């Protein structure tokens, strides 16, 4: 229902599309720092953990680079990053729309004869979805850079070993897989959170409840989607 109203022809196409870059900045670029910090640190920490905890003569040293690469590409840069984004972006969307609902700003749009779902939600979904590939690339890149940092500045593993691992049996399709997943997850975050915010009713408490619901429900839905997409794409 809501999706139907979101993706219909707008009253003024230009005005709606003008909001897309605005939302992209608000939801996407403002998340860059969070994603960057977490990606680097997890890259560093995972590299150290793998090196320190897999003392096994049968495992070559370059396994570390390989493991880090595949973890990032397969799950971290899509699923884990999106779970983080659900917390930040999802609650942001739900509380923004929720407060617009309770302060009658959504009614004000309707009174003007504007399809409020289309005007408010469509740019958020498009903005986030279109920005997802950037975040995935950034996340993977910085994670591997973190690992590289460990190789360079500690004596745990040599850079050569690490880089060899990174390149060993690389499957480019994993990157596509990860971007596709992230795009789906971006859609889930934006649409589920919009739903809870848009239909918030009551006072300030309702806004809080909407944003909690948005985070929890979009996280669960993403994990389910992860299973489905993995099943479709990797088997």
């Amino acid at each position, binding site marked *: 229902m809501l999706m139907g109203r979101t993706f219909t022809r707008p009253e003024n196409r230009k005005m709606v599309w003008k909001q897309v870059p605005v939302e992209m900045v608000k939801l996407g670029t403002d998340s860059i720092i969070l994603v960057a910090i977490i990606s680097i640190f997890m890259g560093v920490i995972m590299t150290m953990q793998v090196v320190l905890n897999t003392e096994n003569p049968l495992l070559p040293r370059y396994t570390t680079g390989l493991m880090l690469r595949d973890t990032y590409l397969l799950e971290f840069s899509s699923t884990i990053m999106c779970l983080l984004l659900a917390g930040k972006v999802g609650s942001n969307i739900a509380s923004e729309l929720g407060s617009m609902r309770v302060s009658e700003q959504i009614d004000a749009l309707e*009174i003007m004869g*504007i399809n409020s779902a289309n005007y408010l939600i469509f740019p958020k979904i498009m903005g986030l979805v279109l920005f997802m590939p950037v975040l995935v690339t950034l996340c993977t890149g910085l994670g591997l850079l973190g690992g590289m940092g460990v190789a360079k500045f500690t004596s745990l593993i040599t850079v050569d070993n690490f880089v060899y691992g990174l390149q060993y049996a690389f499957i480019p399709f994993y990157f596509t897989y990860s971007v596709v997943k992230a795009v789906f997850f971006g859609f889930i975050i934006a649409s589920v959170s919009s739903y809870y915010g848009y239909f918030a009713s009551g006072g300030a408490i309702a806004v809080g409840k909407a944003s909690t619901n948005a985070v929890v429900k979009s996280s669960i839905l993403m994990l389910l989607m992860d299973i489905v997409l993995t099943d479709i794409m990797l088997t």
Partner: protein
Amino acid sequence: MIEVRNIIKSFDGKQILHDISATFYDGKVNQIIGPSGSGKTVLMKCVIGLHRAEKGEILYDGRDILSMQKNEVKRLRREVGMLFQGAALFDSQTVIENVLFPLEMFSAMTKIEREERAKFCLERVNLYEDKHKLYPSEISGGMQKRVAIARAIALNPKYLFCDEPNSGLDPVTSLVIDKLIKEITQEYNITTIVNTHDMNSIMESGDHILLIREGHKAWEGSRNEIFNSDNQSLQEFVFASDLFKTIKMNSFNKNL
């Protein structure tokens, strides 16, 4: 002119509006009055179509909003302005952007014409250049209401709805807002409907008055008729305020 005929509205099986009929006239401030919770807001939102009345007719100069297609309702909405209880300004936009918004959405004007129109509307509510670039959170409640009025009249509406325009304002600011609504109504011959429970505002600006009590229509008439009516509900509502008891006593004594 808006005519409401026998409308009924319930939420979750609980009936809120019971068979209400009324007429709201052009160029007049038509007030819906009654205690809090009596159904004023619900009635207003039914008339505009934000809530859907289950039964009845709502005629905008003869056009029934309840039997319209979605697109027709949308077109009608462009003739409607509304001032919400909490102003409902878009808080991500500045004062002038708020007023420009309906113009950008719907008018065929050029950028310069739109800006002139927005400035004109803001000047009409006594807000000048120095306030244009501020955000709603940076101005007072009374100013927010004025910006909301400017936004509501930007597209030259035929019908103006105001839900408790005085709530949360001090008496002086309330008076300013009431006057503004009244002047604009007369100047542009708008059919204005105002929800209020404020006796000052009723005496100050009400032309045609509809009293609602627990979802029933209790009384309808002009302001002058208020004091001459012997309607029980009206008496109770009006004279709940001490001020008006005194006025009534005075006029009573004078008559002796």
